[in-house]
């Protein structure tokens, strides 16, 4: 149940495959004793316009997967392809330039800049990329996330839920191919969390984005179209049309499904 090509309007044609990982491995630490294999030969492919949740126990490599896929960290081996383009940049500047057009981020701790207003925070990625700042469009997106009357406020004048909505608006404004979200509802109350999850759904349905969301909460995962399960740095399962109960059930037995050595 993947969804293609909705709401793309006048944007440049997107690749049908939004994200592909081929044999991605990431090891932390250099000496043999202390090294941790956070990702072990992970391959996956996500179609454009999909909403995927990534789940797994703490330490299973979810954040590492997201960071490698998003170009925030470089895998030790394997390839990452975003919107048809392989990530090859070596320096941080090259990676930053690669990310600008292709990916957006939403993190648990919002990462808004305290000295910038809501409107300025939203348009910052455009400024940094040297792109034309379409204030009208930013305003429209901020209105869509319910912040039309907060444009001149600074982050410390907003609630957690409102801050996360600014972060979503900021991730949308560059029209990226993939939006990566790491525990976006982790610091929010139930109602704000629901608003944020609805907005991520809308990013897929109305804006045609692809969303990859790391979460440990079955309720959050149930908003996605599909769920990828991760255990000990390896893919350990896949579920379509997840519900709260089916996800919780699968999580509880995740350890059982991973025979050693596979």
């Amino acid at each position: 149940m993947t969804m293609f090509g909705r709401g793309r309007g006048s944007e440049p044609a997107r690749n049908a495959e939004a994200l592909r990982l081929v044999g991605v491995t990431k090891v932390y630490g250099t000496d043999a004793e202390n090294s941790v294999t956070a990702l072990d030969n992970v391959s996956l492919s996500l179609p454009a316009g999909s909403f995927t949740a990534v789940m797994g126990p703490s330490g299973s490599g979810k954040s590492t997967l997201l960071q490698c896929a998003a170009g925030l960290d470089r895998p030790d081996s394997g390839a990452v392809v975003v919107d048809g383009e392989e990530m090859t940049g070596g320096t941080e500047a090259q990676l930053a330039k690669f990310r600008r057009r292709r990916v957006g981020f939403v993190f648990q701790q919002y990462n808004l800049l305290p000295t910038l207003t809501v409107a300025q925070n939203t348009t910052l990625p455009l400024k940094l990329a040297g792109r034309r700042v379409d204030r009208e469009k930013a305003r429209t997106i901020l209105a869509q996330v319910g912040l039309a009357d907060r444009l001149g406020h600074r982050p410390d004048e907003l609630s957690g839920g409102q801050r996360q909505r600014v972060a979503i608006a900021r991730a949308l404004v560059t029209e990226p191919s993939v939006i990566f979200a790491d525990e976006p509802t982790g610091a929010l109350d139930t109602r704000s969390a629901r608003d944020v999850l609805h907005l991520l759904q809308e990013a897929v349905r109305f804006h045609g984005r692809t969303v990859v969301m790391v979460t440990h909460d079955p309720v959050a995962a149930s908003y996605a179209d599909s769920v990828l399960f991760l255990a000990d740095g390896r893919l350990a399962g896949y579920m379509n049309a997840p519900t709260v109960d089916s996800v919780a059930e699968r999580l509880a037995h995740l350890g059982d499904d991973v025979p050693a050595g596979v």
Partner: protein
Amino acid sequence: MFSLAFRSVRQRPGRFVGTLLAAFLGATVTMTFNSMHDTAGAAGVDDRSAESLTLAAGVVGGYGTLLVFFAIASTLTVNVRQREEEMGLLRRTGATPAQIKRMIVGESVLVALAATVLAIGPAMLGGRALFDMFQDTDQVAADVDFAFGPIALSAGFGITLIAAAGAAYLAVRRATRTAAGAAGAGEPRGRLRNVGGGLALVTGLGGAATTFVFESTDPALMAPAAYGAILLSIGLAAFSPALLRMLLRRVGRPIGALGAGGYLAVLNTRQRAAELAGVLMPLVLFIGVATATVYMQAVESDAIEASGLAKSVDDKNLETMNLIVVGVIVGFACIMLINSLYAATSYRSREFGGQRLAGATPRQVLGMVVTEGLLLTVTGVVLGTAAGLAGLVPFNMVRTDTVWPEQSPLVWLGIVATAAAATMVTGWATARRALRTPAVVAVTKAA
């Protein structure tokens, strides 16, 4: 009381470097000059020698102590602010505010103690050099012996330890208060700064104006002008946020148009103008005091030369004293400037992380930091030069009957270049270090 503090100092000695350096310099200066008291107090020293020595000891007396306090306070404020997270953690695990206060004060006293012990050797050498100079110029009789004793040591330990304990107490009290009643904590401080700044401006102008009361050849002519410049520097720095904002209204747009780095620099500086007064204070002091004292000395030397007389021993001593005073103030101001700027930049690691996640390249972040440094430098140069001239021009008018000193502006350019370099290099190097942490780590870790 000391066990927790002792462990904390031992484990993370790096974060106490600023305090150690400030306390070390403070103790060295204090003991160097106070050893003149020891020397003067020894048996068999004639009255004239004793008077010269006591006079010298008093040169850095009052404001020297004040500078030691300010320098230590500035480094400790930074240290405590960087550790708000740790203090919050301690409180959540059951430490009372009093226990935290004791820990921080204990740490500072330990560091100050170490600094003073380290300073004894250099202070003995410095004291001896000062003493030799007095003997060479016949201000002190040849049969007097240099002594480094109880007065130097008690002043060194006393002033440094009391300054460290007091500054730590104030810093931690402010931090715990801010944490308790987060909002509105800035208000009374702003008012206090305005009142203090106003007072410094009024007394500074008064000091500079007093210059006109003196005869042109009065040996004390330089004193009111110099003190005027120091006080005006402090007063102007207190009101520097207003000037910074005014500057931004003029140049904000063109700088913002230069690129994302400039754009962010303008927004940050506008938003943080009030906090940046802490960085501007030592910058203005540095430029103001250095400009006033160095040029007054030059005017004085030229005036003596023009009168056809040779420099007397007193003239020479005054010159040396002036240069020492400039050296001390400038040294302290430089430590404070570098320390406060280092802190202001390093605790922004998280903010830099946020910018990088929003698509900023390391270059853009560095561009922003350097632009901010430029805005600070320009503000500091304007205010510092104004304060320096406010002392220098009255002195020049009384001493030479012309308004404008005829000395070359090259020295002033040198002073400005030094200040600009200290500001930019500190900001740039600190930001570069902060950028070594991966962006994702920077935004999750406390600074």
